[in-house]
């Protein structure tokens, strides 16, 4: 094969409009596809973050007591937990104010110096009991769980910091970078009394799936406190294979225990899989939308290249015949069109790289976007050049089959 760049460039200068059109299309596609892929990967990474819980066979209940006694809910909750724990197929159950991916909960500053103006970090507070670690399937990597006698019942309006807390490892490491958090004290409610870290769990996410908690996504505190009040959640761990049946049994049994409650049809009793699904619906939707945009753009670009090259091959049949008559082999002709496409593609990706970076910078300043990794641009460049070569292959092969006798056909 004998392909040289200079005469191809010389010929392209005479076809500026088509060349520019395709190069710009490639540039735009690169800019958009790089950024879209980056967003897709970010969203999917967000969706893939683990909560720290064992999510299979986990069932959630969001409960609201109504009528008299709703504000002093201690006996009602205790009755509910007793009911839940004796249902066949239930391994354990806990009462907790919120849980990962629920979307709402408590966040407070954590500090080691009670007089410090500024907290070391924010963290979420889970008001739990001694069954929480087992029910959620958390991995206790240091210290111990709460004892039953450590659980206190408090009014949400005037909660007092507990003497003992369990923290997530991420929080422990943040507050005590030396790695020795166990037995140390922190202040989690302003300058109230200190709480001693009695246990560390490997991982526990905050309840937020959006960007709100991005800076403290795994900073969680478990408190041996049950909040009295009309609203509350239960988490129920089931035996394998029993979850579907329990989705019906649990609300029925709860209603049998106490009818004075509201369990909403949509969020009342759900499997944790449903909770996860709902929490990341927009992220998934965004990723899907971006994927569709990418696929459509790439398809349009490929179609544009096929179209323009086919047109050029048709237009140049005679000169292809002349080149063949002058000694070009079939692979010379094939190489001509592949190289021509590669040159246009290279011009496109050079401009496209600048546009991709520009578009990303614009989004960084106007939206909550991170800086685009150059890996995406590099992969995009290679992908677009390959798509270009793939798209041009069929018309280029057609060109290579033009007979040299075309040169002699009278005009």
């Amino acid at each position: 094969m004998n392909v040289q760049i200079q005469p191809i460039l010389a010929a392209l200068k005479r076809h500026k409009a088509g060349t520019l059109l395709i190069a710009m299309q490639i540039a735009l596609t690169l800019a958009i596809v790089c950024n879209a892929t980056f967003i897709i990967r970010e969203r999917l990474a967000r969706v893939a973050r683990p909560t720290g819980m064992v999510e299979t066979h986990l069932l959630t209940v969001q409960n609201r007591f109504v009528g008299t006694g709703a504000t002093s809910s201690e006996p009602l909750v205790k009755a509910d937990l007793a009911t839940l724990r004796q249902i066949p197929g239930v391994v354990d159950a806990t009462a907790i104010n919120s849980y990962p991916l629920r979307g709402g909960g408590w966040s407070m500053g954590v500090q080691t110096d009670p007089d410090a103006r500024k907290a070391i970090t924010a963290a979420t507070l889970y008001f739990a009991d001694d069954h929480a670690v087992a029910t959620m399937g958390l991995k206790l990597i240091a210290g111990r769980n709460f004892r039953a006698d450590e659980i206190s019942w408090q009014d949400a309006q005037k909660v007092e910091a507990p003497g003992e807390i369990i923290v997530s490892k991420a929080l422990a490491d943040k507050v005590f970078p030396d790695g020795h958090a166990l037995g140390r004290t922190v202040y989690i409610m302003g300058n109230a009394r200190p709480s001693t870290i009695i246990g560390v769990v490997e991982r526990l996410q905050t309840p937020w799936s959006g960007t709100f908690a991005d800076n403290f996504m795994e900073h969680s505190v478990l408190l041996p406190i049950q909040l009295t009040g009309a609203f509350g959640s239960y988490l129920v761990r089931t035996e394998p294979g029993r979850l579907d049946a329990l989705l019906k049994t649990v609300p029925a049994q709860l209603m049998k225990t106490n009818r004075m409650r509201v369990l909403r049809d949509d969020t009342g009793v759900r499997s944790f899989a449903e909770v996860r699904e709902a929490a990341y619906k927009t992220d998934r939707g965004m990723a899907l939308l971006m994927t569709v945009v990418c696929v459509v753009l790439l398809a349009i670009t490929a179609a544009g290249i096929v179209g323009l090259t086919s047109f050029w091959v048709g237009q140049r049949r005679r000169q292809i015949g002349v080149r063949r008559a002058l000694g070009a082999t079939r692979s010379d002709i094939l190489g001509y069109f592949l190289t021509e496409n590669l040159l246009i593609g290279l011009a496109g990706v050079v401009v496209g790289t600048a546009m991709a970076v520009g578009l990303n910078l614009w989004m960084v300043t106007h939206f909550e976007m991170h800086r685009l990794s150059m890996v995406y641009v590099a992969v995009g460049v290679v992908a677009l050049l390959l798509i270009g070569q793939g798209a041009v292959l069929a018309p280029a092969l057609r060109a290579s089959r033009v007979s040299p006798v075309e040169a002699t056909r009278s005009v």
Partner: protein
Amino acid sequence: MLKMTHLSKVYRTEVVETYALRDFNIDVKEGEFVAVTGPSGSGKTTFLTIAGLLETFTGGTYHLDGIEVSRLDDNARSKIRNEKIGFIFQAFNLIPDLNVYDNVEVPLRYRGMKGPERKQRIMDALERVGLASRAKHYPAELSGGQQQRVAIARALAGSPRLLLADEPTGNLDTQMARGVMELLEEIHREGATIVMVTHDPELAARAQRNVHIIDGQVVDLGEDPRFHAHAARAVDA
């Protein structure tokens, strides 16, 4: 140099079979200048395209420079076209996207020739046809006669041993035609074998030998060009 024996070429379409050449015999010796004449549709172009390896034939044998060409694959045929044959077409067939210089360069690049040698040959060839000053012009900016001279420069640059010309002056006025003819004669004197198809009896008369084709067959009219010129006129009429 060029020897065809009992050669035939059939064009098949769904409805008809056309014998463009039948029992076609010709022997062109090295260094000859042969003019091919004949009425329109008699098979002159077909003969030239087969001679130039632009097309395959249906039956018979064809030896080019001692090689039986029907055995050659497409790449080998391309190589022979590139190295041994120079083409001059009635329609000039310059590549409109390339300037004069780049046009003359095309066959040299396919030969894989190095830059400095290419440049030397291109400038020499353009010098010969008197168009060195137009190297940067595009074909559309040149007259027909100039375009054909560029085409001749392109054919010459590779120093081919065989020059095939299909009505090279067909699109030119008399004066331009004369210029082109003088150029061909000069090239011939330097040793190239030339086969030229022409309608013009006056030009045919200037060749060493005339071959007349009627209905896809060679009709030998002997060595006397004057006699031949009359015959050609008679047939065309």
